[in-house]
Structure formats: C-alpha cells, structure tokens
C-alpha cells in the first residue's frame, strides 16, 4: 500500500498511533463522496513555510492513492483528497507524521469566513452612510430641498441600521447573554453605547431636528470589527507553540464486533485487541500473560508481569505482542484523556469581580459625563457618553496576561518545560520551596547499569537481539553496548514474559538474554548467554543525577528551600547534596504523608514522576512531572519537565519572574491608555469613531509589548 519499493518510509510502529482513524468521522474532517473519492481535512500545526506547502501539495506524487492536497496556509490545515480503495487515513496520517507534519488529532474549530463578510458589510454600510450624510455636512439646506434632505437622512439611518443588525449584532448578543447570565462582560458598555447612539439618533430623526449620529454609528461598528479582525490576525501570528501533545488512543479494535470502536462506546464484556506499544484504554482483564509498563502513570520503569485474568489499569503500556482483553468496566467516554486534561475550568485572567467593577465604573462615568455635558451642550451629551463607553474597554488589560504567559509557556518548552497552561508561569515565579521526589527525579529513570562484557566479539549480535525488545532492561543493555546493530544476524527471536529473550543467530547459535531463572543461573543480574557461554552480565542500578548539585546551589541563591520527599527506603545522598537538603529529608512517606508534608509549604513546587504523586501534586502550588525520553500523560501535574534539561531549571524560574514583571508593566501601560482615553473623551476631544479606532490599537500595542519581551528574555540559540 505504501509507495516506494526502496523500503523508505515510516516505521510500522508509527502506524499504530493513528490506527484508530480508520473510524474517522465528519468531526475529524473525513468526508466520503464515493467508494473511490474521499477527503480528509486535517490540522497540521507544523506548517510554517513555502517549502511545507509545496512538499505537502505534491503528496500525490509520493503517496499512491492520494489524488490531491490543498494546504490552507493561514489555518495550518490541509485537505487531502484520496481514493479510499488505495489508501487509508491512518496511512496518510502516518506519512504526514513521517515527513515532519504530525497531524493534530484534537478537533480544532474551523475558521469562519463570516468575520470577513461582516467586516465587508460593515464597511459597505459605513461608506454609503457617510456618503449620504455628506450633503447635510456640506450645507444642504432644509428650506429648498426638504424632501432631498429627508431622503438622505433616512438612507443614512437605513445603512447604519443594517450595519448594526448584520455586523454589530455580535456585541448586542454577547452583552445580552452576559446580562441574562447575571455576569458583567466587557461587551456590555459597547452594546449600551451602540444602542444609546442608535436610539437617540432615531428620536432626533423622527423629530426632524437633525440626522442624528447614524454615520458615527456605522463608522464605530466598522472600526470595532476591523480592530477585532486585525487583533486576531496579529494574535494568530503569535499563536503559541504547542505545549503538550495528545498521544492518547481514541478508539480500539473490538474483536467481538470485528471493528474499531470509540472508547466511549466500549461495553463491559467486550473483547478488545491491544497492539504492542498500545495504551490500555479502560480497566480490562487480560486474557493472556502480559508485561505492562506503568511508567506513564507510576514513573516506575520496571515492567510489571500480569497473569491471565488479572486486571490491567488504565494508562499501562503493553510490552508484549498483541494482547486480548475483556473490558471490566465501561470506560468513561473520555476518562483517559481526562487524566491529562485539566478538570478545573479556566476562569479567565481578569477575575469576574474585577470585570464587574470595571464595567460599572465605566457606565457610571459615561452617565456622569453625559449629564454634565447635558448642561454645557445637550447636542453632544450622548456622543460623549458613547465615546467614554467605547474607549474605556479594558481589552488591553485582559489580553496582557494570557499573551505574556502563553508565549512564555512556548518559550519555556526550549528549556524542556511544557506547561499545561500559561498560568503555570505565574505560579513558577512565586516558588519558595521545591519538594523533590527521589525515584526518577533525583535518580535516573532510564535504567543505567554495569555491563560486564565477556565476549566483545559478539556484542553486535547481542545489540541486535536487545534492540528488538521494548523492555527497559534490554534498552539499558543496548545503551551500555558500544556496537552496531547487525540487521541480518538474527534469524529467530522470541520474548518470554518474565524470563527474557530467546533468539537464534545466522550461524545457528542459540541465544538467551534474561533473568537467571531462564538459564539456570543465580537470580539477580541479567545474563546474556550464547550456546551456554556467558557473553555479558548486566546489573541495573539507579544513579543520582549528580549534575543537579549546581542547580541546587543556583536555586538557593534565588531564595528557594529544597526538600526531599520520597516513598522509598532511606538511601545515602551524594555528599555534596547534604548542605542543600540539611534536615529536610523525608524517606518512607506514603502518598498521603507526602501531601501532608507539602501542604504547609507556601508556594511549593513539587517535582516528581507519576501517579504515586497525585496527592503531592495536588497539595503543592504547582507540580511538574519529570519525563525521560518518552512522553506520556501525568494526572494532576501542571506540566512536564524533560529530565535531560533539569540542569537549566534555574533559568526557567528566572524567566518566569521576568515575565511576571513584564505583565505588571503591561497592566500599568494599559491603565495609562484607558485613563488618558477616558479623560480625553470626557472633555469632548474624542468622537465615538476615533475611540473605536484607538481601542484596538491600544490592545495591539500592549500585546506587542508583552510578546516582544517574552521573546526578548528567551534563550538565544
């Protein structure tokens, strides 16, 4: 099915990542036109340049079955037209991933063209409203041409009303929703302004006193929408780098139904098939013995052997070939995804109380201003109130923090820290204590060990044997071996759970790599035996990350106190760490005790490695999970931290502190904008149209300010 006979192509394991897309639906962008024509619209966040577009659009030349590809550069999406008889979505997805554009499987909202359309209509209405308002400005006099004057006035009113209904409706609806939900939204002042302007103008129009402010109203709507449009374009350019990838399965092969089934549709008693490397999607009973790697959730890198009939927990990674299992408990529709995703709803950066306070102040100011002007010049009172309502919109205020922290979270990924939300940056800046977990955090997760190689000349064969296994010990041996893999050398290969690997090489020698019980030797180390001759001996060990010594010192200089909180038996720490931890070392703590130790610590960061630490992560102000090599998901953590970049952790904190300062500066900047604007409006120097132009400009400048600083403080590479 895959094109190219050269063997060049994605690894078969990659395919398993996308296998569930066999049951892709319209929600996932799949549309079938006929048995030979279908399309798949997919989000490819990696698209960034001209070459991307050209490579992807030539996909039909390098993948059989694809008829055409259209890339939407702005949306970073591609529409793949293909023949479902020749190629399937999983294969397309695998190839896209292979050439460097991993599809984002999180359903993204499609961009709507309606925004452009509304903007166009608002522009059209404004142009025509202004045009028909001109004659009166230029002194068309009511005596001689009264019917003309009325025609022009009413046509201005008509265009402004169309604009209000078609384009300005968004503000009115949003404000109405907020009022009905008894919350204060920043759209309320704008909506009040628009309605007041329209109502007052209508009164004037019907009375025949003047044409009202319909031209201003249409201009106001147009510039508000234009500002929103430009803002969104600017923000899209700064769109945050992806922080966390979602690798979770969405559907699984169900044997008794003979098809892929969505996780939410799994029923108790269904038999499912899980491929090697797959993740257990629901609580299941294994139908055969199986090796499970729970490192995603427990951080424990030693695999666990599970006997047939035993229960497998959600999140375990299957290390054995093709496991069948019966579903013990119906999966919560998205329980697996929920483990990683936040259960706390995002309350927004500006608190509801602040929004309410702000909205009320603005409305009060507008009323007071209007009343004062009613005394001075009644014809301008409404106009001035509206200007106040429009210019005071604290959009800049509400944008500064999300943009600063969102960009910062992206920058932090260069330091190996991937935060779930930008809010984590704010928390990191406040850290006073760090509670370190021992296993996997202060020690290495990847099994390191001593390899005694007795037969160096056979190390190539040994490397080839262990390289085929996903077992952590095999991986440890592979790393310890300094040998090239000989792809042709191994003719037979079989992994026995809990025992080891049996293999035969091309010269007919039998190999065994595994535990002592598998080859009749004393238990303990892992043996590699070839035809009864001991080739190598491997003793796994957990070693402390001594490179952290310097990090501890640097962090102390930032005023941070270190704590060690571990569930393990006491073990001697490296000598140079004693000064950093002093008496704050706690071994043999249960998960609950860990949490108790952390709770009294204010602004505490917990750095641990998995499920054992759920309570600790929850009780700390912020919890980070340490990852070595593989990316999984970590319940209750606020982010993940790449182990090999732990030595840069001081920079992470320094950067976070700088970003918090930047946001404070941006707040002051935007307050200055708003105060100046309100004062100018109150003394009558700002018309509603100018206010509508200035408002988005101030927002954009504040966003530029924080984003440029976020980049400026970023590491140079």
């Amino acid at each position, binding site marked *: 099915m895959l094109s190219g006979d050269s063997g060049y192509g994605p690894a078969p394991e990659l395919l398993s990542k996308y296998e569930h897309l066999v049951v892709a639906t319209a929600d996932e962008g799949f549309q079938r036109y006929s048995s030979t024509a279908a399309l798949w619209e997919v989000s490819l966040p990696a698209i960034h340049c001209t070459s991307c577009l050209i490579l992807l659009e030539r996909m039909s030349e390098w993948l059989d079955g694809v008829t055409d590809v259209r890339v939407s550069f702005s949306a970073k999406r591609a529409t793949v037209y293909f023949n479902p008889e020749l190629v399937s979505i999983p294969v397309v997805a695998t190839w896209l991933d292979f050439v460097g554009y991993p599809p984002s499987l999180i359903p993204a909202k499609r961009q709507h*063209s309606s925004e452009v359309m509304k903007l166009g209509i608002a522009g059209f209405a404004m142009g025509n409203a202004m045009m028909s308002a001109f004659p009166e400005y230029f002194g068309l006099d009511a005596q001689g041409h009264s019917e003309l004057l009325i025609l022009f006035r009413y046509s201005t009113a008509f265009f402004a009303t169309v604009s209000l209904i078609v384009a300005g409706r968004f503000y009115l609806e949003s404000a109405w929703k907020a009022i009905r939900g008894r919350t204060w939204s920043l759209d309320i002042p704008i909506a009040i302004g628009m309605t007041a302007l329209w109502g007052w103008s209508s009164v004037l129009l019907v009375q025949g006193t003047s044409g009202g402010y319909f031209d201003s109203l249409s201009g106001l709507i147009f510039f508000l929408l234009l500002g929103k449009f430009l803002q969104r374009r600017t923000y899209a350019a700064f769109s945050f780098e992806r922080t966390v990838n979602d690798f979770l399965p969405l559907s699984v092969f169900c044997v008794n139904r003979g098809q892929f089934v969505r996780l939410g549709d799994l029923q108790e008693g269904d038999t499912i098939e899980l491929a090697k490397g797959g993740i257990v999607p629901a609580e299941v009973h294994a139908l055969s013995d199986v090796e499970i790697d729970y490192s995603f959730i427990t951080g424990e890198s030693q695999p666990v052997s599970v006997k047939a009939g035993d229960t497998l927990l959600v999140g375990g990674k299957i290390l054995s070939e093709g496991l069948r299992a019966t579903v013990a408990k119906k999966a919560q529709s998205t329980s697996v995804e929920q483990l990683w995703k936040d259960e706390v709803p995002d309350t927004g950066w500006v608190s509801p109380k602040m929004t309410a306070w702000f909205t009320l102040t603005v409305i009060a100011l507008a009323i007071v201003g209007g009343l004062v002007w009613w005394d001075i010049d009644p014809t301008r009172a409404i106009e001035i109130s509206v200007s106040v309502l429009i210019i005071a919109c604290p959009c800049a205020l509400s944008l500064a923090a999300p943009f600063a922290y969102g960009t910062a979270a992206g920058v932090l990924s260069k330091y190996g820290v991937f935060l779930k939300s930008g809010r984590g940056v704010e928390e990191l800046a406040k850290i006073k204590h760090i509670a370190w977990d021992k296993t996997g955090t202060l020690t290495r997760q990847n099994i390191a060990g001593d390899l005694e190689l007795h037969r160096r000349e056979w190390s190539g064969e040994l490397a080839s044997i262990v390289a085929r296994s996903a077992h952590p010990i095999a991986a440890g041996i592979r790393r310890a071996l300094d040998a090239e893999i000989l792809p042709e050398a191994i003719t037979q290969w079989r992994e026995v759970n809990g025992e080891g690997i049996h293999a035969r090489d091309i010269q007919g020698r039998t190999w065994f790599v595994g535990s002592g019980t598998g080859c009749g030797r004393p238990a303990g180390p892992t043996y590699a035996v070839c035809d009864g001759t001991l080739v190598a001996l491997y003793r796994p060990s957990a070693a402390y990350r001594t490179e952290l010594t310097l990090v501890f010192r640097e962090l102390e200089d930032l005023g941070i106190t270190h704590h060690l909180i571990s569930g393990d038996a006491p073990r001697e720490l490296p000598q140079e760490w004693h000064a950093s931890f002093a008496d704050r070392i706690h071994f043999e703590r249960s998960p609950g005790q860990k949490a108790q130790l952390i709770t009294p610590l204010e602004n505490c960061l917990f750095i641990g490695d998995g499920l054992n630490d759920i309570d600790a992560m929850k009780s700390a102000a912020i919890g980070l999970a340490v990852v070595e090599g593989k990316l999984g998901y970590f319940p209750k953590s606020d982010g993940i931290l790449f182990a090999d970049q732990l030595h840069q952790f001081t920079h992470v904190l320094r950067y976070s502190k700088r970003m918090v300062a930047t946001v404070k500066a941006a707040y002051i900047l935007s307050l200055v904008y708003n105060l100046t604007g309100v004062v100018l409006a109150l003394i009558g120097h700002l018309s509603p149209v100018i206010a509508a132009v200035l408002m988005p400009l101030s927002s954009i400048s504040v966003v530029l300010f924080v984003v440029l600083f976020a980049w400026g403080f970023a590491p140079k590479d």
Partner: protein
Amino acid sequence: MNIIFLLLFFSLLIAAAFLAAFVWSAKSGQFEDVEGPAMRMLREERKKQTTNS
C-alpha cells in the same frame, strides 16, 4: 431634481451588486487562506488542480 433620485437609485444598485459579489466570494472561501496562493505560484510544475470544495 428627480434626476438625483434616479442617480441615487442606480448608484446604490451598483454598490449592492458589488456587495453581493463580495458576499459570494467570502462565502466560497476565497478569504480563508490569503498567504497560500502567493507561495503556490512558486511551485515549478503545475498539474491540474481538483476543484476546491
């Protein structure tokens, strides 16, 4: 004088026609990707494109 009413009517008709053309182009997705076409022209050999959805 009446000629002004007539002129106004015709100018609005023309404007409305352009508005209709704009609404059609926005609805058919011509504004969805404004950067892509500029890059697409750099492609060397062109082949027949399937009609866009």
